[in-house]
Protein backbone atom coordinates (compact mmCIF):
# COMPACT_ATOMS: atom_id res chain seq x y z
CA UNK A 1 0.00 0.00 0.00
CA UNK A 2 3.01 2.19 0.52
CA UNK A 3 3.71 1.78 -3.15
CA UNK A 4 0.28 3.03 -4.11
CA UNK A 5 0.88 6.07 -1.97
CA UNK A 6 4.15 6.69 -3.79
CA UNK A 7 2.44 6.42 -7.14
CA UNK A 8 -0.29 8.78 -5.99
CA UNK A 9 2.06 11.60 -5.09
CA UNK A 10 2.04 12.97 -8.62
CA UNK A 11 1.03 16.64 -8.65
CA UNK A 12 -2.60 16.85 -7.66
CA UNK A 13 -4.32 19.77 -9.33
CA UNK A 14 -3.98 20.73 -12.95
CA UNK A 15 -4.22 24.46 -12.90
CA UNK A 16 -3.56 25.23 -16.50
CA UNK A 17 -3.78 23.64 -19.87
CA UNK A 18 -0.31 23.33 -21.42
CA UNK A 19 -1.54 24.68 -24.70
CA UNK A 20 -2.89 27.94 -23.41
CA UNK A 21 0.33 29.53 -22.20
CA UNK A 22 -0.27 31.77 -19.21
CA UNK A 23 2.13 34.50 -18.16
CA UNK A 24 5.17 33.29 -16.26
CA UNK A 25 4.17 34.92 -13.02
CA UNK A 26 0.99 32.89 -12.72
CA UNK A 27 2.78 29.53 -13.13
CA UNK A 28 2.94 27.55 -9.93
CA UNK A 29 6.46 26.79 -8.77
CA UNK A 30 7.62 23.17 -8.26
CA UNK A 31 11.05 23.98 -6.84
CA UNK A 32 12.75 27.16 -5.71
CA UNK A 33 16.51 27.38 -5.88
CA UNK A 34 17.75 29.90 -3.37
CA UNK A 35 21.35 31.12 -3.18
CA UNK A 36 22.73 27.72 -4.20
CA UNK A 37 26.50 27.31 -4.23
CA UNK A 38 28.41 24.09 -4.73
CA UNK A 39 31.98 22.96 -4.27
CA UNK A 40 33.91 19.98 -5.66
CA UNK A 41 36.44 19.74 -2.83
CA UNK A 42 37.92 23.21 -2.62
CA UNK A 43 36.90 24.19 -6.14
CA UNK A 44 33.68 26.19 -6.26
CA UNK A 45 31.54 25.14 -9.21
CA UNK A 46 28.28 27.03 -8.60
CA UNK A 47 27.93 30.57 -7.30
CA UNK A 48 24.90 31.83 -5.46
CA UNK A 49 22.19 30.69 -7.87
CA UNK A 50 18.58 31.70 -7.37
CA UNK A 51 15.85 30.66 -9.78
CA UNK A 52 12.41 29.04 -9.85
CA UNK A 53 11.50 25.74 -11.51
CA UNK A 54 7.95 26.14 -12.74
CA UNK A 55 5.52 23.29 -12.40
CA UNK A 56 4.61 21.39 -15.57
CA UNK A 57 6.96 23.40 -17.69
CA UNK A 58 10.21 22.57 -19.39
CA UNK A 59 13.08 24.60 -18.01
CA UNK A 60 16.18 24.50 -20.23
CA UNK A 61 19.66 25.11 -18.89
CA UNK A 62 22.11 26.32 -21.51
CA UNK A 63 25.68 27.56 -21.51
CA UNK A 64 29.15 26.64 -22.74
CA UNK A 65 30.91 23.43 -21.60
CA UNK A 66 32.05 23.57 -18.01
CA UNK A 67 29.58 26.33 -17.08
CA UNK A 68 28.06 24.24 -14.29
CA UNK A 69 24.69 23.41 -15.80
CA UNK A 70 25.05 19.64 -15.27
CA UNK A 71 26.49 20.24 -11.80
CA UNK A 72 23.43 22.35 -11.06
CA UNK A 73 21.05 19.66 -12.36
CA UNK A 74 22.72 16.98 -10.24
CA UNK A 75 22.04 18.97 -7.07
CA UNK A 76 18.31 18.30 -7.42
CA UNK A 77 18.65 14.57 -6.69
CA UNK A 78 21.79 14.82 -4.57
CA UNK A 79 23.91 12.91 -7.09
CA UNK A 80 26.94 14.74 -5.71
CA UNK A 81 26.54 12.84 -2.44
CA UNK A 82 27.95 9.73 -4.12
CA UNK A 83 31.45 11.17 -4.21
CA UNK A 84 33.48 12.39 -1.22
CA UNK A 85 34.31 16.02 -0.39
CA UNK A 86 31.44 17.63 -2.30
CA UNK A 87 29.65 20.44 -0.49
CA UNK A 88 26.42 22.37 -1.01
CA UNK A 89 25.31 25.72 0.38
CA UNK A 90 21.95 27.45 0.07
CA UNK A 91 18.59 25.77 -0.49
CA UNK A 92 16.51 23.98 -3.06
CA UNK A 93 12.94 23.99 -1.79
CA UNK A 94 10.79 21.23 -3.22
CA UNK A 95 7.16 22.34 -3.26
CA UNK A 96 4.42 21.99 -2.17
CA UNK A 97 5.84 20.75 1.17
CA UNK A 98 8.86 23.01 1.11
CA UNK A 99 11.45 20.26 1.74
CA UNK A 100 15.01 21.55 1.45
CA UNK A 101 16.51 19.01 -0.93
CA UNK A 102 20.14 19.81 -0.22
CA UNK A 103 19.91 20.19 3.54
CA UNK A 104 22.16 17.64 5.28
CA UNK A 105 19.13 16.79 7.39
CA UNK A 106 17.20 15.64 4.34
CA UNK A 107 17.67 11.99 3.48
CA UNK A 108 18.84 12.00 -0.17
CA UNK A 109 16.38 9.14 -0.75
CA UNK A 110 13.50 11.59 -0.32
CA UNK A 111 14.22 13.70 -3.38
CA UNK A 112 15.48 10.69 -5.34
CA UNK A 113 12.21 8.85 -4.86
CA UNK A 114 10.30 11.89 -6.19
CA UNK A 115 12.66 13.16 -8.87
CA UNK A 116 13.67 11.05 -11.86
CA UNK A 117 16.77 11.50 -13.97
CA UNK A 118 17.99 10.61 -17.44
CA UNK A 119 21.72 10.81 -18.01
CA UNK A 120 23.82 11.96 -20.91
CA UNK A 121 24.94 8.46 -21.83
CA UNK A 122 22.38 5.67 -21.73
CA UNK A 123 23.01 3.54 -18.63
CA UNK A 124 20.60 0.60 -18.69
CA UNK A 125 20.98 -1.98 -15.93
CA UNK A 126 22.34 -5.44 -16.80
CA UNK A 127 18.83 -6.83 -16.84
CA UNK A 128 16.03 -7.40 -19.31
CA UNK A 129 14.14 -4.55 -20.95
CA UNK A 130 11.12 -5.29 -18.76
CA UNK A 131 13.14 -5.41 -15.53
CA UNK A 132 14.88 -2.13 -16.37
CA UNK A 133 11.56 -0.34 -16.58
CA UNK A 134 10.11 -2.17 -13.58
CA UNK A 135 13.18 -1.54 -11.41
CA UNK A 136 11.99 1.77 -9.95
CA UNK A 137 8.60 0.30 -9.11
CA UNK A 138 10.05 -2.83 -7.54
CA UNK A 139 12.23 -0.87 -5.14
CA UNK A 140 9.15 1.15 -4.20
CA UNK A 141 7.61 -2.14 -3.15
CA UNK A 142 5.25 -2.73 -6.09
CA UNK A 143 4.80 -6.49 -6.40
CA UNK A 144 1.49 -6.77 -8.18
CA UNK A 145 2.21 -8.28 -11.58
CA UNK A 146 -0.72 -6.56 -13.29
CA UNK A 147 0.33 -3.12 -12.08
CA UNK A 148 3.92 -3.78 -13.11
CA UNK A 149 2.89 -4.98 -16.57
CA UNK A 150 0.60 -2.02 -17.06
CA UNK A 151 3.14 0.53 -15.89
CA UNK A 152 5.95 -1.00 -17.95
CA UNK A 153 3.84 -0.86 -21.10
CA UNK A 154 2.64 2.67 -20.38
CA UNK A 155 6.17 3.93 -19.75
CA UNK A 156 7.59 2.25 -22.84
CA UNK A 157 4.77 3.72 -24.91
CA UNK A 158 5.43 7.19 -23.55
CA UNK A 159 9.12 6.81 -24.35
CA UNK A 160 8.14 5.82 -27.92
CA UNK A 161 9.85 2.46 -27.54
CA UNK A 162 6.97 0.05 -27.03
CA UNK A 163 6.43 -0.94 -30.66
CA UNK A 164 10.10 -1.76 -31.11
CA UNK A 165 10.45 -3.94 -28.02
CA UNK A 166 7.02 -5.36 -27.22
CA UNK A 167 7.96 -8.76 -28.65
CA UNK A 168 11.22 -9.03 -26.73
CA UNK A 169 10.56 -7.50 -23.33
CA UNK A 170 12.65 -10.18 -21.68
CA UNK A 171 15.70 -9.76 -23.90
CA UNK A 172 18.75 -8.04 -22.42
CA UNK A 173 18.69 -4.26 -22.46
CA UNK A 174 22.17 -4.36 -23.95
CA UNK A 175 20.74 -5.81 -27.18
CA UNK A 176 19.17 -2.42 -27.94
CA UNK A 177 20.81 0.29 -30.04
CA UNK A 178 22.14 3.44 -28.37
CA UNK A 179 19.04 5.48 -29.20
CA UNK A 180 16.75 2.71 -27.99
CA UNK A 181 18.77 2.36 -24.78
CA UNK A 182 18.33 6.07 -24.11
CA UNK A 183 14.58 5.81 -24.62
CA UNK A 184 14.63 2.78 -22.32
CA UNK A 185 16.32 4.92 -19.68
CA UNK A 186 13.60 7.52 -20.15
CA UNK A 187 10.94 4.84 -19.73
CA UNK A 188 12.76 3.64 -16.60
CA UNK A 189 12.70 7.16 -15.17
CA UNK A 190 9.02 7.62 -16.07
CA UNK A 191 7.73 4.33 -14.66
CA UNK A 192 7.54 5.43 -11.00
CA UNK A 193 5.86 8.65 -12.18
CA UNK A 194 8.21 11.14 -10.55
CA UNK A 195 7.15 14.71 -9.91
CA UNK A 196 10.20 16.18 -11.59
CA UNK A 197 12.23 14.78 -14.44
CA UNK A 198 15.88 15.82 -14.83
CA UNK A 199 17.33 15.37 -18.31
CA UNK A 200 21.10 15.79 -18.63
CA UNK A 201 21.81 16.30 -22.34
CA UNK A 202 19.60 13.33 -23.14
CA UNK A 203 20.09 13.56 -26.89
CA UNK A 204 23.80 14.33 -27.14
CA UNK A 205 24.60 10.73 -28.10
CA UNK A 206 21.66 10.29 -30.46
CA UNK A 207 21.08 10.71 -34.18
CA UNK A 208 18.65 13.38 -35.47
CA UNK A 209 15.71 10.97 -35.75
CA UNK A 210 16.00 9.68 -32.20
CA UNK A 211 16.56 13.26 -31.05
CA UNK A 212 13.34 14.38 -32.70
CA UNK A 213 11.54 11.45 -30.98
CA UNK A 214 12.78 12.56 -27.62
CA UNK A 215 12.01 16.22 -28.17
CA UNK A 216 8.43 15.32 -29.08
CA UNK A 217 8.29 13.18 -25.99
CA UNK A 218 9.51 16.02 -23.76
CA UNK A 219 6.82 18.23 -25.20
CA UNK A 220 4.15 15.66 -24.35
CA UNK A 221 5.53 14.91 -20.94
CA UNK A 222 5.26 18.45 -19.68
CA UNK A 223 1.51 17.95 -19.45
CA UNK A 224 2.10 15.85 -16.38
CA UNK A 225 5.72 16.38 -15.30
CA UNK A 226 8.00 19.22 -14.36
CA UNK A 227 11.06 18.92 -16.56
CA UNK A 228 14.52 20.39 -16.28
CA UNK A 229 16.73 19.77 -19.30
CA UNK A 230 20.40 20.51 -19.78
CA UNK A 231 21.30 20.97 -23.42
CA UNK A 232 24.17 22.10 -25.58
CA UNK A 233 21.85 22.63 -28.45
CA UNK A 234 20.24 26.06 -28.42
CA UNK A 235 17.67 25.18 -31.06
CA UNK A 236 16.62 22.34 -28.81
CA UNK A 237 16.25 24.68 -25.85
CA UNK A 238 14.20 27.06 -27.98
CA UNK A 239 12.04 24.24 -29.32
CA UNK A 240 11.15 22.38 -26.16
CA UNK A 241 11.32 24.78 -23.22
CA UNK A 242 9.15 27.49 -21.76
CA UNK A 243 11.86 28.83 -19.46
CA UNK A 244 15.59 29.10 -20.00
CA UNK A 245 18.50 29.72 -17.70
CA UNK A 246 21.84 30.74 -19.16
CA UNK A 247 24.90 29.68 -17.15
CA UNK A 248 28.44 30.87 -17.46
CA UNK A 249 31.40 29.90 -15.24
CA UNK A 250 29.15 28.60 -12.51
CA UNK A 251 26.91 31.64 -12.39
CA UNK A 252 23.36 32.03 -13.58
CA UNK A 253 23.71 34.97 -15.97
CA UNK A 254 20.09 35.22 -17.00
CA UNK A 255 16.82 33.43 -16.42
CA UNK A 256 13.52 34.08 -18.10
CA UNK A 257 10.86 32.86 -20.45
CA UNK A 258 12.47 31.08 -23.36
CA UNK A 259 11.01 33.42 -25.93
CA UNK A 260 12.35 36.44 -24.13
CA UNK A 261 15.81 34.90 -23.67
CA UNK A 262 16.10 34.06 -27.34
CA UNK A 263 14.59 37.27 -28.76
CA UNK A 264 15.38 40.06 -26.33
CA UNK A 265 18.02 38.90 -23.82
CA UNK A 266 18.77 41.44 -21.14
CA UNK A 267 22.42 40.50 -20.74
CA UNK A 268 24.92 41.08 -23.51
CA UNK A 269 26.65 37.80 -22.58
CA UNK A 270 23.45 35.88 -23.25
CA UNK A 271 23.08 37.69 -26.52
CA UNK A 272 26.64 36.77 -27.49
CA UNK A 273 26.16 33.12 -26.59
CA UNK A 274 22.88 32.53 -28.36
CA UNK A 275 24.10 34.28 -31.48
CA UNK A 276 27.19 32.08 -31.46
CA UNK A 277 29.75 34.76 -30.75
CA UNK A 278 31.31 32.65 -27.98
CA UNK A 279 30.96 29.24 -26.36
Amino acid sequence: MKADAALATTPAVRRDSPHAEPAAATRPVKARVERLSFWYGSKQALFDITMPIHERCVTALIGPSGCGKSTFLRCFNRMHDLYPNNRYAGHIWLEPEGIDIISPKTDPMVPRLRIGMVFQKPNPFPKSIYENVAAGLRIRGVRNRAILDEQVEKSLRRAALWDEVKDRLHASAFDLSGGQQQRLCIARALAPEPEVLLLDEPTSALDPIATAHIEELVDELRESYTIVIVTHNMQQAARVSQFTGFFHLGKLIEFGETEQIFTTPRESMTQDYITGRFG
Partner: protein
Amino acid sequence: MKSKQDSDSHGRFAPSSAFLRRRALRARLMHTLLLLTGTLSVLVTAGIVYTLVRDAVPFFAEVGLLTFLTDTQWTPLFAQPRYGILPLLAGTLTTSLIALLVAIPAGTVLAIYLSEFAQRRLREVVKPVLELLAGVPTVVYGYFALLVVTPLLQRLIPGLPGFNMLSAGLVMGIMILPYVVSLAEDAMRAVPDALREGAYALGFSRLQTAVRVVIPGAFSGLTAAYLLGMARAVGETMVVAIAAGQNPRLTFNPLEGAATITTYIVQVSLGDAPYGSLAYRSIFAAGLTLFVVTLLFNILGFWLRRRFREVY
Protein backbone atom coordinates in the same frame (compact mmCIF):
# COMPACT_ATOMS: atom_id res chain seq x y z
CA MET B 1 64.86 11.12 -57.16
CA LYS B 2 63.32 8.60 -54.85
CA SER B 3 63.44 10.85 -51.81
CA LYS B 4 61.99 13.68 -53.86
CA GLN B 5 59.05 11.51 -54.81
CA ASP B 6 58.54 10.50 -51.19
CA SER B 7 58.37 14.00 -49.85
CA ASP B 8 56.36 15.33 -52.74
CA SER B 9 53.66 12.71 -52.75
CA HIS B 10 53.15 12.38 -48.99
CA GLY B 11 53.32 15.92 -47.70
CA ARG B 12 55.82 17.73 -45.59
CA PHE B 13 56.41 15.09 -42.90
CA ALA B 14 56.32 12.05 -45.16
CA PRO B 15 58.39 9.24 -43.58
CA SER B 16 61.39 7.94 -45.54
CA SER B 17 61.09 4.44 -46.96
CA ALA B 18 63.99 3.34 -44.74
CA PHE B 19 62.00 4.49 -41.72
CA LEU B 20 58.94 2.55 -42.88
CA ARG B 21 61.06 -0.57 -43.50
CA ARG B 22 62.52 -0.38 -39.99
CA ARG B 23 59.05 0.05 -38.58
CA ALA B 24 57.72 -2.97 -40.47
CA LEU B 25 60.69 -5.03 -39.31
CA ARG B 26 60.10 -4.03 -35.69
CA ALA B 27 56.46 -4.95 -35.96
CA ARG B 28 57.31 -8.34 -37.41
CA LEU B 29 59.87 -8.98 -34.71
CA MET B 30 57.37 -8.12 -31.99
CA HIS B 31 54.78 -10.31 -33.61
CA THR B 32 57.14 -13.30 -33.68
CA LEU B 33 58.14 -12.74 -30.07
CA LEU B 34 54.52 -12.67 -28.91
CA LEU B 35 53.73 -15.75 -30.96
CA LEU B 36 56.67 -17.59 -29.37
CA THR B 37 55.54 -16.67 -25.86
CA GLY B 38 52.01 -17.85 -26.61
CA THR B 39 53.26 -21.09 -28.14
CA LEU B 40 55.50 -21.75 -25.16
CA SER B 41 52.60 -21.66 -22.69
CA VAL B 42 50.59 -23.97 -24.91
CA LEU B 43 53.60 -26.32 -25.18
CA VAL B 44 54.03 -26.44 -21.40
CA THR B 45 50.37 -27.35 -20.95
CA ALA B 46 50.65 -29.99 -23.66
CA GLY B 47 53.76 -31.34 -21.94
CA ILE B 48 51.93 -31.67 -18.62
CA VAL B 49 49.03 -33.47 -20.25
CA TYR B 50 51.49 -35.75 -22.06
CA THR B 51 53.28 -36.64 -18.82
CA LEU B 52 49.99 -37.46 -17.14
CA VAL B 53 48.64 -39.48 -20.04
CA ARG B 54 51.88 -41.37 -20.74
CA ASP B 55 51.85 -43.11 -17.37
CA ALA B 56 48.11 -43.15 -16.95
CA VAL B 57 47.52 -45.13 -20.15
CA PRO B 58 49.43 -48.28 -19.04
CA PHE B 59 47.71 -47.93 -15.66
CA PHE B 60 44.25 -47.96 -17.23
CA ALA B 61 45.32 -50.84 -19.51
CA GLU B 62 46.00 -52.91 -16.42
CA VAL B 63 43.25 -51.74 -14.04
CA GLY B 64 40.52 -50.78 -16.47
CA LEU B 65 38.73 -47.49 -16.64
CA LEU B 66 35.45 -48.90 -15.38
CA THR B 67 37.03 -50.40 -12.25
CA PHE B 68 38.89 -47.16 -11.66
CA LEU B 69 35.68 -45.15 -11.79
CA THR B 70 33.40 -47.52 -9.90
CA ASP B 71 35.43 -49.47 -7.35
CA THR B 72 34.84 -48.12 -3.87
CA GLN B 73 38.24 -49.00 -2.44
CA TRP B 74 41.59 -47.28 -2.93
CA THR B 75 44.31 -49.46 -1.47
CA PRO B 76 47.26 -49.37 -3.91
CA LEU B 77 49.86 -50.21 -1.26
CA PHE B 78 48.08 -53.26 0.14
CA ALA B 79 49.07 -56.80 -0.75
CA GLN B 80 45.88 -57.01 -2.79
CA PRO B 81 45.61 -53.51 -4.19
CA ARG B 82 42.29 -51.96 -5.22
CA TYR B 83 42.15 -48.92 -7.48
CA GLY B 84 38.80 -47.14 -7.19
CA ILE B 85 39.16 -43.38 -7.42
CA LEU B 86 35.79 -42.67 -5.75
CA PRO B 87 37.06 -42.42 -2.15
CA LEU B 88 39.74 -39.90 -3.13
CA LEU B 89 37.34 -37.99 -5.33
CA ALA B 90 34.84 -37.84 -2.47
CA GLY B 91 37.53 -36.45 -0.19
CA THR B 92 38.52 -33.81 -2.71
CA LEU B 93 34.95 -32.76 -3.44
CA THR B 94 33.89 -32.68 0.22
CA THR B 95 36.82 -30.56 1.40
CA SER B 96 36.53 -28.26 -1.63
CA LEU B 97 32.80 -27.83 -1.12
CA ILE B 98 33.30 -26.85 2.53
CA ALA B 99 36.00 -24.40 1.48
CA LEU B 100 33.73 -22.85 -1.13
CA LEU B 101 30.84 -22.65 1.33
CA VAL B 102 33.13 -20.49 3.45
CA ALA B 103 34.91 -18.52 0.74
CA ILE B 104 32.09 -17.69 -1.67
CA PRO B 105 29.57 -16.13 0.73
CA ALA B 106 32.21 -14.48 2.92
CA GLY B 107 34.23 -13.38 -0.08
CA THR B 108 31.23 -11.92 -1.87
CA VAL B 109 30.01 -10.03 1.20
CA LEU B 110 33.48 -8.69 1.89
CA ALA B 111 33.89 -7.66 -1.72
CA ILE B 112 30.53 -5.86 -1.67
CA TYR B 113 31.55 -4.09 1.50
CA LEU B 114 34.94 -3.05 0.15
CA SER B 115 33.65 -2.01 -3.25
CA GLU B 116 30.36 -0.31 -2.36
CA PHE B 117 30.43 0.70 1.29
CA ALA B 118 33.95 1.20 2.59
CA GLN B 119 35.65 4.57 2.49
CA ARG B 120 38.56 4.67 0.12
CA ARG B 121 41.09 4.98 2.96
CA LEU B 122 39.79 1.83 4.63
CA ARG B 123 39.81 -0.07 1.36
CA GLU B 124 43.40 0.93 0.78
CA VAL B 125 44.36 -0.68 4.09
CA VAL B 126 42.15 -3.77 4.06
CA LYS B 127 42.89 -4.98 0.56
CA PRO B 128 46.69 -5.24 0.90
CA VAL B 129 46.28 -6.92 4.30
CA LEU B 130 43.95 -9.49 2.75
CA GLU B 131 46.39 -10.04 -0.07
CA LEU B 132 49.08 -10.58 2.51
CA LEU B 133 47.03 -13.53 3.78
CA ALA B 134 47.45 -15.06 0.34
CA GLY B 135 51.20 -15.07 0.92
CA VAL B 136 51.07 -17.32 4.00
CA PRO B 137 52.58 -20.72 3.10
CA THR B 138 49.92 -23.41 2.85
CA VAL B 139 51.79 -25.65 5.28
CA VAL B 140 51.17 -23.00 7.94
CA TYR B 141 47.46 -23.13 7.17
CA GLY B 142 47.67 -26.91 7.48
CA TYR B 143 49.07 -26.79 10.99
CA PHE B 144 46.66 -23.98 11.87
CA ALA B 145 43.84 -26.37 10.94
CA LEU B 146 45.30 -29.32 12.83
CA LEU B 147 46.47 -27.53 15.98
CA VAL B 148 44.03 -24.64 16.39
CA VAL B 149 40.81 -25.19 14.44
CA THR B 150 40.39 -28.92 15.08
CA PRO B 151 40.72 -28.60 18.90
CA LEU B 152 38.23 -25.72 18.80
CA LEU B 153 35.81 -27.79 16.74
CA GLN B 154 36.29 -30.73 19.11
CA ARG B 155 34.92 -28.60 21.92
CA LEU B 156 31.79 -27.92 19.88
CA ILE B 157 31.46 -31.39 18.41
CA PRO B 158 32.40 -34.08 20.92
CA GLY B 159 33.96 -37.15 19.37
CA LEU B 160 35.33 -35.32 16.36
CA PRO B 161 38.44 -37.17 15.21
CA GLY B 162 41.77 -35.34 15.12
CA PHE B 163 41.85 -35.69 11.36
CA ASN B 164 38.64 -34.46 9.77
CA MET B 165 37.54 -32.86 6.55
CA LEU B 166 35.53 -30.12 8.26
CA SER B 167 38.56 -28.46 9.80
CA ALA B 168 40.61 -28.83 6.62
CA GLY B 169 37.78 -27.45 4.50
CA LEU B 170 37.14 -24.47 6.77
CA VAL B 171 40.78 -23.48 6.84
CA MET B 172 41.06 -23.98 3.10
CA GLY B 173 38.11 -21.60 2.77
CA ILE B 174 39.98 -18.99 4.78
CA MET B 175 43.01 -19.63 2.65
CA ILE B 176 41.27 -18.98 -0.67
CA LEU B 177 39.21 -16.10 0.72
CA PRO B 178 41.74 -13.39 -0.25
CA TYR B 179 41.74 -14.57 -3.86
CA VAL B 180 37.98 -14.56 -4.05
CA VAL B 181 37.67 -11.14 -2.36
CA SER B 182 40.36 -9.56 -4.46
CA LEU B 183 38.99 -10.77 -7.79
CA ALA B 184 35.35 -10.20 -6.84
CA GLU B 185 36.10 -6.67 -5.68
CA ASP B 186 37.96 -5.91 -8.90
CA ALA B 187 34.99 -7.21 -10.88
CA MET B 188 32.54 -5.03 -8.94
CA ARG B 189 34.67 -1.93 -9.20
CA ALA B 190 34.87 -2.46 -12.95
CA VAL B 191 31.10 -1.88 -13.13
CA PRO B 192 30.80 1.68 -14.45
CA ASP B 193 29.76 4.42 -12.03
CA ALA B 194 27.12 5.45 -14.57
CA LEU B 195 25.16 2.33 -13.60
CA ARG B 196 25.37 3.18 -9.91
CA GLU B 197 24.26 6.74 -10.61
CA GLY B 198 21.32 5.39 -12.58
CA ALA B 199 20.33 3.21 -9.64
CA TYR B 200 20.71 5.91 -7.00
CA ALA B 201 18.80 8.40 -9.16
CA LEU B 202 15.94 5.92 -9.27
CA GLY B 203 15.86 5.78 -5.48
CA PHE B 204 17.87 2.60 -4.86
CA SER B 205 19.61 2.32 -1.50
CA ARG B 206 23.27 1.37 -1.33
CA LEU B 207 22.46 -2.25 -0.61
CA GLN B 208 19.87 -2.42 -3.39
CA THR B 209 22.35 -0.87 -5.79
CA ALA B 210 24.97 -3.44 -4.81
CA VAL B 211 22.70 -6.47 -4.96
CA ARG B 212 20.45 -5.58 -7.90
CA VAL B 213 22.77 -3.64 -10.17
CA VAL B 214 26.44 -4.11 -9.32
CA ILE B 215 26.40 -7.89 -8.78
CA PRO B 216 24.52 -8.68 -12.00
CA GLY B 217 26.86 -6.26 -13.78
CA ALA B 218 29.90 -8.02 -12.37
CA PHE B 219 28.60 -11.53 -12.93
CA SER B 220 31.27 -12.57 -15.37
CA GLY B 221 34.10 -11.42 -13.10
CA LEU B 222 32.45 -12.99 -10.06
CA THR B 223 32.28 -16.34 -11.86
CA ALA B 224 35.99 -16.06 -12.58
CA ALA B 225 36.65 -15.28 -8.91
CA TYR B 226 34.66 -18.31 -7.70
CA LEU B 227 36.28 -20.57 -10.26
CA LEU B 228 39.76 -19.56 -9.26
CA GLY B 229 38.81 -20.27 -5.64
CA MET B 230 37.44 -23.65 -6.71
CA ALA B 231 40.57 -24.51 -8.65
CA ARG B 232 42.73 -23.56 -5.69
CA ALA B 233 40.63 -25.70 -3.34
CA VAL B 234 40.58 -28.76 -5.59
CA GLY B 235 44.33 -28.59 -6.12
CA GLU B 236 45.26 -27.71 -2.54
CA THR B 237 47.54 -30.31 -0.98
CA MET B 238 49.21 -29.36 2.28
CA VAL B 239 46.13 -28.33 4.27
CA VAL B 240 44.22 -31.51 3.51
CA ALA B 241 47.26 -33.77 3.83
CA ILE B 242 47.96 -32.39 7.30
CA ALA B 243 44.47 -31.87 8.70
CA ALA B 244 42.13 -34.30 6.92
CA GLY B 245 44.23 -37.43 7.35
CA GLN B 246 45.65 -39.81 4.78
CA ASN B 247 43.17 -42.60 4.91
CA PRO B 248 41.16 -43.09 1.69
CA ARG B 249 37.57 -43.52 2.74
CA LEU B 250 34.44 -43.25 0.65
CA THR B 251 32.45 -40.70 2.63
CA PHE B 252 30.98 -37.27 2.23
CA ASN B 253 30.70 -36.82 5.99
CA PRO B 254 32.79 -33.77 6.90
CA LEU B 255 33.18 -35.06 10.46
CA GLU B 256 35.35 -37.93 9.28
CA GLY B 257 38.89 -37.84 8.03
CA ALA B 258 39.61 -38.85 4.45
CA ALA B 259 42.40 -38.59 1.94
CA THR B 260 41.97 -36.47 -1.15
CA ILE B 261 43.48 -36.99 -4.58
CA THR B 262 46.27 -34.57 -3.81
CA THR B 263 46.97 -36.16 -0.44
CA TYR B 264 47.42 -39.51 -2.11
CA ILE B 265 49.72 -38.12 -4.78
CA VAL B 266 51.99 -36.47 -2.24
CA GLN B 267 51.94 -39.55 0.01
CA VAL B 268 52.98 -41.95 -2.75
CA SER B 269 55.52 -39.63 -4.35
CA LEU B 270 57.27 -39.30 -1.00
CA GLY B 271 57.03 -42.99 -0.26
CA ASP B 272 58.75 -45.91 -1.86
CA ALA B 273 56.60 -46.96 -4.77
CA PRO B 274 59.19 -48.24 -7.28
CA TYR B 275 59.42 -46.37 -10.58
CA GLY B 276 57.24 -47.92 -13.25
CA SER B 277 55.18 -49.98 -10.81
CA LEU B 278 51.40 -49.90 -10.88
CA ALA B 279 51.31 -47.92 -7.62
CA TYR B 280 53.65 -45.40 -9.16
CA ARG B 281 51.48 -45.13 -12.25
CA SER B 282 48.37 -44.69 -10.15
CA ILE B 283 49.71 -41.26 -9.23
CA PHE B 284 49.31 -40.21 -12.81
CA ALA B 285 45.83 -41.64 -13.09
CA ALA B 286 44.88 -39.69 -9.97
CA GLY B 287 46.56 -36.56 -11.34
CA LEU B 288 44.71 -36.94 -14.61
CA THR B 289 41.43 -37.21 -12.69
CA LEU B 290 42.22 -33.98 -10.88
CA PHE B 291 43.03 -32.35 -14.18
CA VAL B 292 39.73 -33.47 -15.69
CA VAL B 293 37.76 -32.24 -12.64
CA THR B 294 39.35 -28.80 -12.88
CA LEU B 295 38.82 -28.75 -16.62
CA LEU B 296 35.13 -29.55 -16.20
CA PHE B 297 34.69 -26.68 -13.75
CA ASN B 298 36.49 -24.36 -16.12
CA ILE B 299 34.21 -25.36 -18.96
CA LEU B 300 31.22 -24.77 -16.73
CA GLY B 301 32.55 -21.34 -15.82
CA PHE B 302 33.29 -20.52 -19.43
CA TRP B 303 29.75 -21.44 -20.37
CA LEU B 304 28.26 -19.43 -17.50
CA ARG B 305 30.28 -16.41 -18.42
CA ARG B 306 29.25 -16.54 -22.05
CA ARG B 307 25.66 -17.03 -21.06
CA PHE B 308 25.55 -14.06 -18.70
CA ARG B 309 28.23 -11.82 -20.11
CA GLU B 310 27.60 -8.07 -20.00
CA VAL B 311 29.27 -5.72 -22.40
CA TYR B 312 29.45 -2.03 -21.64
